């Protein structure tokens, strides 16, 4: 017999109303541009032409771009894992002075704009290595250390040290314990971290734009170069699609890996950190902590210092001349840093509002809409699997004909940023919604609350915390967003990352110092945003956490 309809379910029209805005956003600003991109890639001049475009892509040069993209990602990933293991261990196992600071610094660096990291490595690397593969690898490692420390550290925290002791009593030396016991247990976490880092570095755009120079490009930069520098739209579109296919496969795989590692994590209770006991232990812990802090903070500190360097020594000129980049009387770069700061803040504000509203609505819709919700969920994760460059490129192509010629609209950039940020908002919010016991709603219903009222009274109040967290994240993403903005940005309304990159691409000490000054400003803005959110969250107790206790 057929199950009767649940009389307590939310009215379908209401659920649909929650979902309609997010669905519209995905369709209009993601799927439609993607279709336009596919049209360009497969249309005449593209694959169907099978003439110039396809043959111009099947060249040894392109082979080298793909090869470089893949191997720099692989080396970056392996190197980050190796460098990150020691700090992950120390932070997971020990309590020491500066532990919170180190963790905060690693996390803050992770959300820093890519262009800032590029600037920091130009500042810290010795002259000939300023723009080299070493600088790229260095920037990738520092960026992604937080991934290793967080993901692998989390598993390490749950790993019972007695297991290692047990192995030791059976005659295994420290290295063999690491090799035979610890690493195998950490493997799911290592794999998850590796997948994420590989994904980030494979699609690395800002770092490579700044540090690669014209001769060293990843696929992502090559798409940008062909579209905006060579005007070869079809080839760029084709490359975008090829990259999209790789990324979707990788994201699907990494999501699976992550799920597996979560299962193994939940099996063991978390263990508290302890203070290092012996002198040797203390020395080792502090050495590792200090070395990590040095690796992470030296480039940024050097960048800030070099903003004070001029041809005549120490000078505040770069800071006082932020607004005037005159090369010769009357000849300027057309850069207006103050307006760029304004544009950046404005974009960040609107992108945050959009991302939070749309991501929040989407999370609620996904949470309430059952099977259809999962489709929306997948749809909203797609932008995550699409590189930001592809998103911006697609929008630029799709919105180029009247009546939807929106290229000059100020809101196109915030929407692009919001698309990049929405998946993070949805993930954060859904996690919290999933942890709200459905019987709370049943309890409200037995007390006379109708379906919508019950939902409003006992589900919605849990939203503010994940939404505040995601607002901070969205603001940080928007402030540093460089890929989509590289396509959508227009003269006169450039955001900070765009003009920082433009200044960095010049060699003069004066212009470089201005770039370092602006990068310092952007770093401070981003860090301050994240810190403000942290403080706001810490000041209010989380009802969900309190409930679980």
């Amino acid at each position, binding site marked *: 017999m057929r199950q009767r309809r649940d009389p307590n379910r939310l009215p379908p029209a209401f659920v649909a109303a929650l979902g309609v805005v997010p669905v519209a956003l995905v369709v209009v600003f993601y799927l439609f541009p993607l279709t336009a991109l596919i049209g360009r890639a497969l249309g005449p001049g593209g694959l169907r032409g099978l003439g110039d475009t396809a043959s111009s892509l099947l060249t040894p040069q392109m082979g080298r771009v793909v090869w470089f993209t893949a191997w720099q990602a692989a080396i970056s990933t392996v190197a980050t894992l190796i460098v990150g293991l020691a700090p992950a261990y120390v932070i997971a196992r020990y309590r020491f002075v500066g532990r919170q600071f180190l963790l905060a610094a690693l996390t803050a660096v992770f959300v820093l704009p890519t262009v800032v990291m590029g600037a920091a490595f130009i500042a810290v690397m010795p002259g000939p290595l300023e723009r080299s593969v070493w600088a790229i690898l260095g920037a990738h490692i520092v960026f992604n250390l937080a991934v290793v420390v967080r993901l692998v550290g989390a598993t390490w925290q749950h790993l019972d040290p007695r297991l290692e002791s047990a192995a030791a009593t059976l005659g295994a030396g420290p290295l063999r314990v690491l090799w035979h016991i610890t690493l195998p247990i950490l493997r799911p976490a290592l794999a998850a971290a590796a997948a994420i880092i590989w994904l980030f570095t494979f699609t690395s755009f800002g770092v490579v734009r700044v540090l690669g120079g*014209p001769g*060293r490009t990843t696929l992502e930069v090559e798409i940008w170069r062909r579209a905006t520098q*060579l*005007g070869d739209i079809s080839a760029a579109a084709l490359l975008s699609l090829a990259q999209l296919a790789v990324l979707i496969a990788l994201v699907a795989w990494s999501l699976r890996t992550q799920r597996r590692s979560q299962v193994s994590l939940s099996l063991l209770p978390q263990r508290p950190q302890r203070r290092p006991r012996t002198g040797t232990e203390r020395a080792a812990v502090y050495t590792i902590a200090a070395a990590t802090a040095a690796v992470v903070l030296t480039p940024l500190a050097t960048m800030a210092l070099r903003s004070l360097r001029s041809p005549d020594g120490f000078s505040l000129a770069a800071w006082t001349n932020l607004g005037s980049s005159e090369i010769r009387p009357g000849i300027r770069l057309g850069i207006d840093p103050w307006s760029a700061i304004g*544009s950046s803040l404005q974009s960040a504000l609107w992108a945050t509002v959009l991302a939070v509203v749309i991501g929040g609505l989407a999370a609620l819709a996904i949470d309430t809409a059952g099977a259809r919700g999962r489709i929306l969920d997948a749809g909203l994760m797609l932008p995550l699997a699409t590189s930001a460059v592809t998103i911006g490129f697609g929008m630029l192509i799709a919105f180029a004909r009247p009546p939807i010629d929106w*290229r000059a609209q100020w809101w196109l950039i915030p929407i692009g940023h919001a698309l990049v940020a929405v998946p993070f908002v949805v993930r954060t919010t859904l996690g919290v919604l999933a942890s709200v016991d459905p019987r709370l709603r049943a309890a409200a219903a037995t007390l006379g609350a109708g379906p919508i009222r019950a939902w409003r009274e006992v589900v919605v109040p849990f939203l503010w915390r994940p939404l505040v967290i995601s607002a901070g994240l969205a603001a940080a993403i928007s402030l540093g967003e460089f890929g989509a903005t590289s396509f959508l940005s227009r003269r006169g309304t450039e955001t900070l990352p765009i003009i920082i990159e433009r200044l960095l691409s010049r060699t003069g000490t004066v212009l470089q110092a201005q770039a370092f000054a602006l990068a310092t400003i952007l770093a401070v803005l981003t860090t301050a945003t994240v810190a403000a959110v942290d403080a706001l969250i810490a000041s209010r107790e989380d009802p969900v956490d309190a409930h679980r206790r």
Partner: protein
Amino acid sequence: MTTSPTSRSRSHVRSHVRSVAILTAVALMAAACSNADDAEEPDVVDDVLVDDASSTVTLVAYESFPVADTDLNSALESFSAQTGIDVEILIAGDTGTMVSKAALTAGNPEGDVIWGIDNTFISRAIEAEVLEAYTPADASAIPDRLRTGAPGGIATPVTYGDVCVNVDLGWFAERDLEAPASLSDLTEEAYADLLVVQNPASSSPGLAFLAATVAAFGEDWPQYWADLRANGVAVTDGWTEAYYERFTHAGGGDRPLVVSYGSSPPAEVIFAPEPLAEAPTGVIEQTCLRQVEFAGILRGTDNPNGARRLLDFLVSAEFQSALPLTLFVYPAVDGIELPTEFVDHAIIPADPYTVDADLIETDRADWIEEWTEIVLR
């Protein structure tokens, strides 16, 4: 039958309150996005040019175009005074970058008039439908030989000159070294690490110089560039950076040889802190390629009337005569009197390289691709 006056006025008040609220919301939105002036209706396209005191025309230009303080800017100010049209200058990077961006924004441009697309890039702009055809009133004074790149009045020639390797004469004199005299000399070991060129993907003189080497060496040009690379050639994205940041004479850099213009030496005379009899820099005549720069109206301009009037002005005698001593190029319009410093020190090579516009159009992408492969990777 009567309606209660109070109820009517109350509902009136209520609807008034609502409309005020809506207006406030709209105003807030507008204030938040002060960059968007899309509310402004485009001027009606009209054959009769009317003075429109409130209108602004945006001139998109490469980054060596002065935004203030020169005769060129004074001329533009006098244009504004005459017509009531303000001119805003939008610096769009190097020529290649500027044209690429114009192609991506074709039909919804960042400005109204574009200045300085040269004959190596003009075909790309035409193909991408960046421009709107318009023939300025005084265009008859522009010789036909300058027009070949832009048939049908799609763009208007505004300047010409030659792209040549420039030499810091003092630097070579100090070292008692003979300056190079030809393209081939540049690959000699004596001149290792002395030359800086521009990336042809983004820079117009860079592409012109590449075209010159193609004209000089034919199919062997890749070998020439491989030799140049082996000899330590430096590459910048744009001319400004190469000339004003890397060139020993003008930028305090480390390169005494730079790809620049045949008319750069007079600039050094004029900008010299003390009066000079001889130009401190010279030109290697055998490296020169003739370059014509065009201006045009950007398709989709918000202000077609203003754009046309500005283009008319760009080929007027008043503006053209300010070009030699500001941009250091020859005016495209015949019969403009040239200043003495310019005539004395500028070099018009007897026999510059020329490259057919059609050849540039078909081969440019391949050249750039191959050049990138040889020189940068």
